């Protein structure tokens, strides 16, 4: 009814190539931004911000990173957790050595360290593909995780071996550390996510994105067309790890506020993010958000939402039940739509465009 492109004529290639060719899509995105920037901080409780929105945004960023690699370039990686860890530790070291520089700068810069490590472990991808590459990235996961525990320099020789997040400010407002409010942390994180998502969207819609997808769909044809396989794959690794690294830094500094980092960046985390990408939709940025929302927030919603609406759940039962429900839903969604939630979203939009006709 409202979702029609009727009457919207495109008179230039620029308009036709726009990321949101239908006006309603653009309006929808602006609405979402308004909700994220105004409504959620205004009406959301402290708990909602710090336990639902912040984890969701961190995981979205990591999922976008993995989606660049797995969804767009067709390279499976099981090292996302470790690459996130590289970002977190890089950020920790940087802000310890240069405490005067703004923490937001270091969060972004730590992504470059992660990108460097990602490229290093991406080199085998020229020769090995598919499951074998997954195993090769598993090596990255274990090696880096070993480093996080065994190299005390990385955690400044703390007795606890944990990352300690000191207070850092922006315009005298604390954004990290114990005195930073969830609202500030949320705003900082949201801004990082919005900007990086915009970059990712630009990348995948342009020359570089086409090269990635060409390598994914038919690497021989891509090579014979002059797309350099190694360069393209390494760039995908770099961009992917950059996003993972920034996500990891955000996770430690804006969400956890420090802690036993080596546990946060283990193989489970890598799998978690891979599941987000698969369930959200491979090769779709919006799918990354769907997947992150599904996997990271559903357990919280079930755990705290059910008691809120009068279904009493306590302790261990709740824990077990969330596992069962989330697991069941994952299987359900994969059967209903193996291409992920993003495809369901697309189908829904298509149905709306055609409404009230079936096709």
């Amino acid at each position, binding site marked *: 009814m409202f979702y029609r492109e009727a009457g919207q004529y495109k008179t230039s*290639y620029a308009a036709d190539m726009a990321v949101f060719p239908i006006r309603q899509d653009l309006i929808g995105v602006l609405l979402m931004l308004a909700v994220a920037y105004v409504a959620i901080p205004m009406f959301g409780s402290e708990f909602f911000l710090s336990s639902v929105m912040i984890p969701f945004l961190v995981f979205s960023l990591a999922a976008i990173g993995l989606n660049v690699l797995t969804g767009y370039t067709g390279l499976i990686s099981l090292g996302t957790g470790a690459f996130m860890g590289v970002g977190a530790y890089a950020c920790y070291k940087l802000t310890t050595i240069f405490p005067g520089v703004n923490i937001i700068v270091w969060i972004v810069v730590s992504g470059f360290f992660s990108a460097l490590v990602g490229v290093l472990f991406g080199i085998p991808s020229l020769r090995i593909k598919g499951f074998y590459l997954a195993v090769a990235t598993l090596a990255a996961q274990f090696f880096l995780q070993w480093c996080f525990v065994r190299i005390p320099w990385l955690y400044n020789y703390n007795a606890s071996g944990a990352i300690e997040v000191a207070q850092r400010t922006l315009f005298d407002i604390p954004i990290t550390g114990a005195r930073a409010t969830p609202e500030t942390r949320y705003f900082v994180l949201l801004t990082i996510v919005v900007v990086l998502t915009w970059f990712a969207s630009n990348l995948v819609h*342009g020359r570089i994105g086409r090269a990635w*997808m*060409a390598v994914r*769909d038919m690497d021989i044809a891509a090579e014979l*067309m*002059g*797309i350099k396989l190694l360069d393209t794959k390494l*760039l995908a690794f770099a961009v992917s790890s950059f996003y993972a690294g920034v996500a990891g830094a955000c996770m430690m500094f804006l969400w956890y506020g420090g802690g036993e980092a080596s546990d946060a960046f283990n193989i489970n985390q890598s799998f978690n993010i891979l599941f987000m990408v698969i369930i959200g939709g491979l090769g779709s940025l919006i799918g990354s958000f769907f997947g992150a929302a599904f996997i990271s927030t559903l357990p919280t919603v079930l755990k705290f939402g059910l008691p809120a609406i009068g279904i009493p759940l306590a302790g261990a039962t709740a824990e077990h039940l969330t596992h069962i429900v989330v697991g069941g839903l994952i299987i359900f969604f994969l059967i209903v739509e193996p291409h992920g939630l993003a495809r369901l979203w697309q189908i829904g939009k298509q149905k709306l465009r055609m409404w009230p006709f079936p096709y």
Partner: protein
Amino acid sequence: MRAPGDGHGTTAGEVLLAVEGVSLSFGGVKAITDVSFDIRKGEIRAIIGPNGAGKTSMLNVINGFYHPQQGRIAFKGETRKRMRPYVAASQGIARTFQNVALFKGMSTIDNIMAGRTLKMKTGFFWQCLRHGPALNEEIEHRKFVEEIIDFLEIQAIRKMPVGKLPYGLQKRVELGRALAMQPDLLLLDEPMAGMNLEEKEDMSRFIIDVNNQYGTTIALIEHDMGVVMDLSDRVVVLEYGRKIADGTPAEVSADQKVIDAYLGVPH
């Protein structure tokens, strides 16, 4: 269609690609043995032969995808050592495939735009912003791609994912993707395999138009002898990896060795 061997292009003379004494083997299997021929500027050159004669291997050698053990290849007078496909592509050799090798998850436009990758120069930074130079470049190349889309008459499918297109159209999109590279030499590996008569006639027309309009030199592998005889200026015939004949379609079709290769000889 043109009369067979009407001399178009044959007088052009200048050699674009020379293949000299090329041998290629995989382990003990000899795919190509001591083959020499040349492709002249502006002509349509056909490579024919029975199955397994080494035709596709020959194209892969020209592409720089396989490295022959012996012999040399000179493109635009430049002898190539070991060459990567990237170098062949940037020198101006484009290619379509026997089994359609499109990027199935992408739309027709994106597939053809991907063919422009080598011509696009804006760096990573501008690509991130997708404004300024990156957007201008994108629009400029989109214009060129739209010309190809007009030329191949595939306007209606420009936004469709190519995986969903019928086979004949996929072949056409693949030709478009190769044309987007503005190649000097276009290699077509069985452009008409699996097509019906009408589609074959369409494709033949496109090949002739590409040759006439853009002056692109074309080397094609084809099994349909009618098409080969009609389209090509000169034909090289391979059998078991060896060259058994080379000449105009009329000469080749009268050659006893060729007739034997295709019809078989009593032993």
